[in-house]
């Protein structure tokens, strides 16, 4: 039973990320006035996949070969594992555990740790450099993003994700917690490597992402993990701030539309913003980014957490 | 054997603790390995506490496990910072050479 559910989840993720790759290419090409290859550019992802499959696998020479081969799979797993607790509809979730939000956070941290290890296992100065960069950036925003989640938890009073969604029936949390919504959205941009919050693609050495040493299947896993991560972050934003599967208003017409569709619509809205930021903005420099995370976002989210907790306390007890 | 009792957890935690203690002696020249071994011992202690708390239906054990977590992290972070400073100044962090830290 559980195995069939896992298979369904995995194949849905696979289909969604293939679709995402295609749509991303189309949109970026449209923005950049690029010509699309024949058959609406459909053959290009397939050709890319073939090319990657038949690439020669290049392994580092040192002692890290086993880790090098194993890590992309682990990285992919750590991101896919998050999907286990994400409810796409009332009851449509692999495991609706009590501490769902905590589980998500744990998996976020685990994937960060894995990035460092990937940088190490690549046995190359440049991969290591890229890994340290990515990790330093993610950690700088991680804490404030976690505080944003804490705000949501305070308001909803539960760590179960489906409870959090149901608690937003009256008002989505992106309205009362708007600054935290922004903070979390930027964190999502950082995690999904979208400008203006990421390493550039511009042939610079420091962009050297952690995955530069990977070819063939290892790279496929990492690249897929990236797209699944984009899907995941948009789903997490939807669950925490955009009211999950709930329609925006309790109008008859809106209620007619299945709630899964609402979830998908909100997710694709986030994804669209992710994709368009890729083309629209220059990229902040690394040190500006990290300073921004630690010096602005962290104190601000701390203050917001205290304010949210105070408000919840006052409204619950009715006195100061 | 089929039902898992408190004893099993305690044995496991004892083993982890012993391994940690063992590691401190074996890697007595390598200060990072010593730090890792100490972390291992701390984890075994919190496993112990959590096992007790669950089998006795008392949350105090878990509360103290939280405190152990805090202490471990604070200790390790400061320790790592000291190592790095020491490395930058002395170009090595072998425990044997660290006599300079004496008063």
């Amino acid at each position: 039973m559980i195995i069939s559910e896992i298979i369904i989840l995995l194949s849905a993720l696979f289909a969604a990320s293939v679709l995402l790759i295609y749509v991303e290419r189309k949109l970026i090409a449209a923005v950049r006035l690029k010509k699309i290859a024949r058959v609406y550019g459909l053959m290009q992802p397939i050709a890319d996949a073939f090319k990657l499959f038949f690439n020669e696998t290049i392994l580092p020479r040192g002692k890290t070969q086993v880790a090098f081969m194993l890590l992309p799979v682990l990285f992919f797993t750590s991101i896919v594992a998050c999907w286990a607790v994400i409810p796409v509809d009332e009851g449509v979730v692999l495991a609706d555990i009590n501490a769902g939000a905590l589980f998500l956070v744990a998996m976020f941290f685990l994937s960060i740790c894995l990035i460092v290890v990937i940088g190490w296992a690549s046995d190359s100065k440049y991969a290591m450099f890229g890994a340290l960069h990515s990790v330093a950036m993610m950690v700088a925003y991680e804490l404030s993003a976690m505080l944003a989640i804490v705000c949501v938890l305070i308001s909803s009073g539960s760590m179960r994700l489906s409870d959090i969604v149901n608690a937003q029936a009256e008002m989505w949390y992106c309205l009362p917690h708007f600054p935290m919504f922004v903070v979390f959205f930027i964190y999502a941009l950082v995690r999904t490597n979208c400008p203006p919050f990421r390493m550039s693609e511009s042939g610079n050495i420091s962009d050297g992402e952690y995955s530069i040493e990977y070819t063939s299947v290892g790279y496929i896993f990492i690249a897929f993990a990236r797209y699944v991560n984009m899907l995941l972050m948009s789903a997490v934003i939807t669950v925490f701030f955009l009211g999950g599967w709930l329609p925006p208003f309790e109008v008859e017409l809106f209620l007619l539309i299945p709630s899964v569709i609402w979830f998908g619509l909100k997710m694709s809205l986030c994804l669209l913003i992710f994709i368009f930021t890729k083309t629209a903005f220059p990229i902040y420099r690394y040190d500006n980014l990290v300073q921004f995370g630690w010096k602005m976002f962290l104190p601000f989210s701390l203050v917001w957490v205290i304010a949210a907790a105070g408000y919840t306390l006052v409204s619950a007890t009715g006195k100061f | 054997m089929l039902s898992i009792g408190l004893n099993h957890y305690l044995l496991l935690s004892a083993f982890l603790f012993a391994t940690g203690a063992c590691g401190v002696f074996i890697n007595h020249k390598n200060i990072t390995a010593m730090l890792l071994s100490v972390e291992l011992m701390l984890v075994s202690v919190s496993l112990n506490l959590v096992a007790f708390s669950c089998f006795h239906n008392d949350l105090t054990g878990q509360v103290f496990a939280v405190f152990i977590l805090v202490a471990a992290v604070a200790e390790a972070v400061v320790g790592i910072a000291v190592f790095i400073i020491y490395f930058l100044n002395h170009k090595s962090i072998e425990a044997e050479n660290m006599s300079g830290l004496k008063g």
Partner: protein
Amino acid sequence: MNEALVFYVLATFSIISAVMVVFSCAVNSVLFLIMVFISVSGLFLLLGAEFLAMMLLIIYAGAFAVLLLMLPLMLNIKETYQHTAVKCSAFGVTVGLLLFSCLAFVLKVKPQRLENDVSLAVANNVKALGEVLYTDYAYLFQLCGMVLFVAIVGVIMLMIRNGMEIKEHKIAGQIIRSADEIELKQLTDGEK
């Protein structure tokens, strides 16, 4: 039955990893330590301590392991001196064995009076833990915060170093600059 199976798997996993932590070199031992953390957090889940399990993953495997990983990576520690002294490893193993046998012996002789099979304390572990933590142990909890705060300040103080020749930029100044600094000039005959 299922629970026992999970326990044994996780226990074996953690034991092997723990041994490898001690007997392998720099980065590998950190990786094995992470494996120990993961398996122990699985054991915590088995015990019903959800909150601690997640915290162990978040704090140890996420934040702390990243730090530990960076240590050997950054410092380029030479690993030549490891495992050279057979004498001390023999000593270490002896100490470990002694310690383990003592602990095991204590377990053996002490009757298990306290044991009962209520493995799940409360339905919502996080909530229950929070209620205890914020009432009975509120001051201790505050103290924990203080400890962490002092650690943060201490680490930052330790790591601040200056004397580097770095070009600093004031962001406000950068943004104020406008595009009309460009002057259009004619080259006069005198300057030719």
